[in-house]
């Protein structure tokens, strides 16, 4: 290797030629690796990049017979129509508020739970609690929605009985728009908090035990050690997950919202993605709803880049 590098330095004229032929030799020798990657590459090109090509119908009046390419251009008409529509601000507000609400409640909880798990020695108690709190992650969205609907049923739901046991009257969770967001966020917390701890627990295992020993000798309490040793240790993980979450701000858990939506809670539950589904696939307004979807992805991408940029300036950690 070193001899090679020296030779390259000595003979800069033939360097490009030599490395190029080396590259080719490498490609030929490893041709089988291209066979390995071909199916994945093809499937991504077909099912991810072709749809990106299809985005142009957001700027066209898509006519199925003429196809994506043949349909006439209309510029930004669909976007203008969306921005001027009476539901634009409602959709944007619902999407953003559900996301931010979910982030504010759902983001810190796995961190707290992971820190709590970390303080307990491995044993039956810890293992049982972990196994149980992870489990809801595997419940499907449909079953989850079914559970929410059954538990909140005004006549026979468990939650309603529980609230009444305290002498209070339960609101109509499923049909009252004021309760939709809370219901959505809290059920998400129930389902995903335990699972979310895994990544932080992994980060916590990398903490040097020497730090804790030294801190104990200095008389630090458990709480102080968590604050000054454990939390700083997981900051990089927190940062990365935060950036990723911000990138998905407008992409809130569309599947569950769609399942929980009903005409009565629509004013609080309709988000951009469910709107795209309704207008695009159910009402076949292909171009219009592609434009709405594109708006959504572009805002997401901008948010991701922006947050990553801010984080990169202020700390060592960033996605790229």
């Amino acid at each position, binding site marked *: 290797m070193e001899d090679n590098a020296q030779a390259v330095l000595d003979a800069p004229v033939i360097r490009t030629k030599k490395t190029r032929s080396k590259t080719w030799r490498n*490609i030929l020798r*490893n041709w*089988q*690796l291209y066979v*390995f*990657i071909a*199916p*994945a*590459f093809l*499937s*991504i*090109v077909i*099912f*991810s*990049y*072709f*749809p*990106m090509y*299809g985005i142009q119908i957001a700027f066209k009046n898509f006519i199925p017979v003429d196809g994506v390419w043949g349909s006439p251009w209309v510029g930004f008409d669909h976007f203008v129509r969306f921005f001027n529509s009476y539901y634009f601000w409602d959709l944007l507000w619902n999407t953003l508020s559900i996301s931010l609400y979910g982030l504010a409640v759902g983001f810190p909880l796995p961190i707290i*739970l992971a820190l*709590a798990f970390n*303080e*307990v020695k491995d044993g039956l*108690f810890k293992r*049982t609690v972990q196994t149980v*709190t*992870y*489990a*809801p992650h*595997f*419940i*499907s969205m*449909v*079953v989850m929605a*079914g*559970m929410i*609907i*059954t*538990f909140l*049923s005004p*006549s*026979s739901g*468990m939650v309603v009985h529980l609230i*009444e*046991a305290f002498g209070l009257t339960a609101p109509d969770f499923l049909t009252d728009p004021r309760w939709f967001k809370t219901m959505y966020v809290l059920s998400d917390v129930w389902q995903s908090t*335990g699972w979310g701890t*895994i990544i932080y627990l*992994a*980060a916590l295992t990398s903490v040097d035990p020497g730090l804790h020993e030294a801190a*104990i000798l200095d008389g630090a*309490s458990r709480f102080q050690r968590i604050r000054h040793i454990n939390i700083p240790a997981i900051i990089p993980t927190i940062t*990365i997950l935060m950036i990723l979450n911000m990138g998905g701000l407008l992409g809130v858990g569309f599947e569950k919202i*769609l*399942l929980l939506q009903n005409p009565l809670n629509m004013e609080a539950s309709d988000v951009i993605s469910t709107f*795209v*589904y309704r207008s695009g*696939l159910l009402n076949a307004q*292909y171009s219009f709803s592609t434009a709405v979807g*594109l708006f959504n*992805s572009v805002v997401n991408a901008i948010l991701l880049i922006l947050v990553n940029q801010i984080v990169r300036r202020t700390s060592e950690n960033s996605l790229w």
Partner: protein
Amino acid sequence: MITTIKETKRDRFFLTCNYIFLFMAFVIVAYPVLYIISASISNPKLVASGEMWLWPKDITFEGYQRVFRDTQIWVGYGNTILYTVIGTLVNLIVTIPAAYALARKDFVGRNFFMAVFMVTMFFGGGLVPTYLLVKNLGLVNSMWALILPGATSVWNLIVCRTFFQSAIPKEMQEAAEIDGCSNFRLFFRIVLPLSSSIIAVMALFFGVGHWNNYFSAMIYLNDHGKYPLQLVLRQILVLQEMSAQAGALNASTATALNNKAEVAALVKYAVIIVSTLPVIIIYPFLQRYFVQGVMIGSVKG
């Protein structure tokens, strides 16, 4: 060393609070699950009135009997198993070799391929263009519409790549090359046998994904005979449409329980259990692998 130092009062107080906190988390998560299990075998009247709140009361298996007699649910079960097995196989065949190629430092073009894959994690064509493509490919109303579009999961691809990079020693590849071993042989004879843990993890992730998937089935399938379990569940749990067969077959028992709405609720609890049971039963045995998968994924690649 640490244990020789006595815990202070403050620390013990803190630990006690910590245990109480974890126990509360345990109860909050476990209670609804226990409630569903109890409710699925209790007299629906007692469930509806709130008298049944922890353990089953006045045990009846009427809910399960109805679920087992419902042909829709069995068809859904069959379809889901089929889609899950084939879908997971396709995922594995596509993802694992690609991840191995990307893990190889001497693979010319790996940065290009990585970039092509990564872009799709943050930007995509969106619902309608994807739907139109699937439609144009003639996949609508076929199981391939549920399998092919998601054949490559970039996230899992990266997880596998990280695994191959860290778990397969580079010397092995060099030794194989010196022995004149081709990349195919190297991969199938040496790398794959060493990678059973990551293959298991991936099979689990992909399998659960297919098992729980309802959205692509909802938009791409029209034929009820092809519906996976989750779509059947959606009809029963969310749209509240009790299957016609289940109602017709049970006219006599229905009179015994007489309140239709309550019976419907009973069936719902039973159906939640029946559909989630396979995942819940195997989960404790496989939890270790799931956790391992998430942890490999958390390593920045």
